[in-house]
């Protein structure tokens, strides 16, 4: 019963105040760390959105270029649009394939705007295409983030008009 060793073991460990202090210190230390993690998470999310915006910028510009000069000329009013939520078919023009690839739901937080300017206005030989992509970036000052893409489509080869 009076084994000093046993008694010594029994009394080693953290006292309640010690624990409380440790927890307080740990908590105070952890708080900025959590903010750090949070920031990292936001930056990662921003990077993800940036990549999505880039994907949108690349694919939409490529699709418009794929129309070629004459295609753009014929579909001018349909290709150019004001701010519009990104949804539906991935391919322009809208696919009639019911199983066609659609934009993922995540893309709904993005909006695009396309402007197309002919040059010269009469009998154009170039179209300047500007694409704006914007989205709400949580926790960012101003909330809205945007990127610009653009290209120029020219009339090469056989001339199909005056």
């Amino acid at each position, binding site marked *: 019963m009076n084994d000093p060793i046993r008694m010594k073991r029994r009394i080693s460990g953290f006292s309640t105040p010690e624990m409380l202090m440790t927890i307080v210190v740990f908590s105070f*230390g952890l708080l900025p760390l959590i903010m750090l993690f949070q920031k*990292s998470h936001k*930056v990662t999310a921003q990077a993800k959105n940036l990549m999505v915006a880039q994907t949108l910028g690349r694919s939409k510009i490529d699709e418009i270029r794929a129309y070629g000069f004459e295609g753009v000329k014929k579909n001018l009013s349909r290709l150019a649009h004001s701010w519009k939520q990104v949804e539906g078919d991935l391919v322009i023009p809208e696919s009639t394939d019911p199983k066609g690839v659609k934009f993922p739901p995540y893309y709904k937080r993005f909006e695009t705007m396309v402007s197309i300017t002919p040059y010269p206005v009469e009998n154009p030989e170039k179209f300047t295409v500007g694409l704006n992509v914007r989205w709400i970036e949580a926790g960012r000052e101003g909330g809205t983030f945007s990127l610009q893409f653009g290209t120029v489509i*020219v009339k*090469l*080869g056989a001339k199909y008009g005056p």
Partner: protein
Amino acid sequence: MNRRGFGYITAVLILGLFSFMGLFLVQSSSTEYSQAAMSCYATMAQQLAEAATDEAFLAIEKELKGAKMGPLLKQGETATLKGITGLNPRLLDILPDYKVAAAQTTGLIITHFSRPAIEVVSILPTITDFRPIDHGWFTVDECIYRPKDRQYAFDRDNKGRDYLLSIGFSTKVAVKLGSRKHVFQYQLTRDMKVINVAPIARAYSMFSCLGIDLRQQDDIYNDLNRGKGRLILWNIPFQSRVYFHGPAVIGVENPDRFEPGDEDGAYVINKPSVFPGFNQAFQYDDTYAGISYVPYPGRALWQKRSIFGGTHKNDLGKMTADEQRMFKHNTYVNKGFLPRYQSRWSDLSDYFNFGKEFVRGTYRKQVFLPAGPYCRTPWRFVGERPANWNNQTADGWPHPSGDLKLEHRFVPGDNNVSDNSKIYTELKRHRLYQALTFASTQKFGGYPQTVNPEFSLTFGNPHDAEGILDGFLILTENVFKTFWETVVVVPRMLFIGGEALVRLIVPRKDPTLAAGVDYTQVKNFFPNNFKNFPKAAVVKLRDVSQIPKDDQGFWILDGLYWLDTFQTTGPVVYKGKGVIFVGDYVPARPFTIGGNILRYRDPATKSPGDNHLTLVYYPFPGDGRLPDDPGFLNECQAIVQGKGVTIEASFFSFAGIRCGSTDVTNNDGCFSEMDFTTYGMNPNAPTADWNVNFKGIYDNAISICGNYVNYFVKKHRMNSDVWVFHDNTNPFYYDKATNRMKEEYTDADEIMAHTAHLSPKIQHLAFSGGGGE
């Protein structure tokens, strides 16, 4: 208390660990973001570089189509099919940095992009290869036809060739992030074709590479004399060339075979009050325009006249200055003796010198008129023996031939080819004794004889006596000359005729499309600017509905369009310069022209400018037959429907044209005798007095305004009249400044004839960079 206090240490260690993790995480996230941003900027840079490069391509295409076509062609002169590319292939001495061409891209950067700072740094062109397009035999100099009177082919200096080059642009775009500048490089290469869209054999109103199908032996005698319609060549007199590969026989009309008033009829000798008909191939009058279709000395007819003299017409004086110039131009020793009143001294010399020979035609209606109506638009004179060939000598005594013979094939150094490809006619030879007012025709002693002399126009008359002394001298000369002509020339004519007959039995070996023919057999054979058309195509289209059109529906020509089929059902108007090529024979959709094909004319000036179409129908049978199958050759003609069809183009059809109805009661599209007078071509008036109603001809016959080229003429398929007007309103053919058909093509002509086309296909693309500077 015996406390060890590990709790604090553990907590601090854990916190430290978490801090490290957090820092790494933040660092990782920041890097990820930076990479994502960089990727975005790279995408933007690539898109802008792509846009700037396209703008540069547009600019260079414009430049090479226009102002820089000349330097480009000049550079290509020294390029060969293999080995040597065009000198200075980078073209950097004439092609600058195209940064200024990217105006829209620069504008886009300024107005559209909020970040980062992007700049197009440079757009530098490179030409990596520049060679002629290899058209096989059509590119071999020896195989391109050059006539006897020229030392060189028409498109010399290689500037007339088609070219293929690879143009690349290396575009640099800089993206500035903070103090660092990231440079991206974008490279894009496209092919460019530079195509000669000028007419084929443009110095020729007609160029028939093989003439008739020699394997069809009857065709040698018959093909050019069959078909209800006439093939009429309206040459620019003594300037336009006509090439016809022989042997072939052009039948000449005999007026005695007609009755007065016959719609097909002609001049009736015993009723001179009846005007000569359109097909009258004999000299009936003492105007130069009445030149006969037969060679000197075999004049067709000598008019009787009074012992007291006759009317001496001053026809040269009645000609316009242009006509006089054309008549004198480059003909035999730069002169043409006008047929004129013959003196009594000459008559006496004729009488004592066994009379004169004359010849008559054998056909009821002549249907191939290479010198136009009444022989009044003769072709260019080409000497039989030019001095510029070492193996040939000038003609000697009695005098060089004054006859205007059709150009036919020859090969330098091989006279057999020339002798074997001549064009003949078929005549009956008579002999006429005439002194003063007495005349008799010898009908015995073997006359009339059938002869096959070379087909020709005679524009020289026997020299006329100017006085008694001159008369005796001429009499003496005529004695010897007649002796020469009787002893030497006649047997030669007979020999030539007989030679043609021999070839009926043993046809000459002639190049055809059959396999196994090498280039030595097609030396000096193909017309200039002939080519392997698919190789020069810049766009492939299904049919005429896909030909680019402007807002008014006019065809826009630019380069060589390769069509699967060609069928028009109404009039079309074209703008620009180009070739339309059809290479397939589709029986269900044969090549058919169903209406006018007209050059666009500026509404203000009414000028067609340099708009030009070269129409090429070179069909390949899709049913297993070879292109030279005799049956195929008789069915693959280009069809022209209707009688008032005008084709303003250089028209090539492999096996000729099919038109009109074979129904003998249907004479649509064939002019009657009265029609010629109605349309202003009075046979009894000199050309200067003609007031030709060309619109009337265009509206009532089939007209090709340009030139006509074929492999086989297949005349028997023409059942409507076809007029070929060598176009003197088209700068590709005619120089208005000098009033001459063009034969030497200047740099300006070659520039006008060529169009440049970038391929829509990308040959090479690369994008790299991003490293900071």
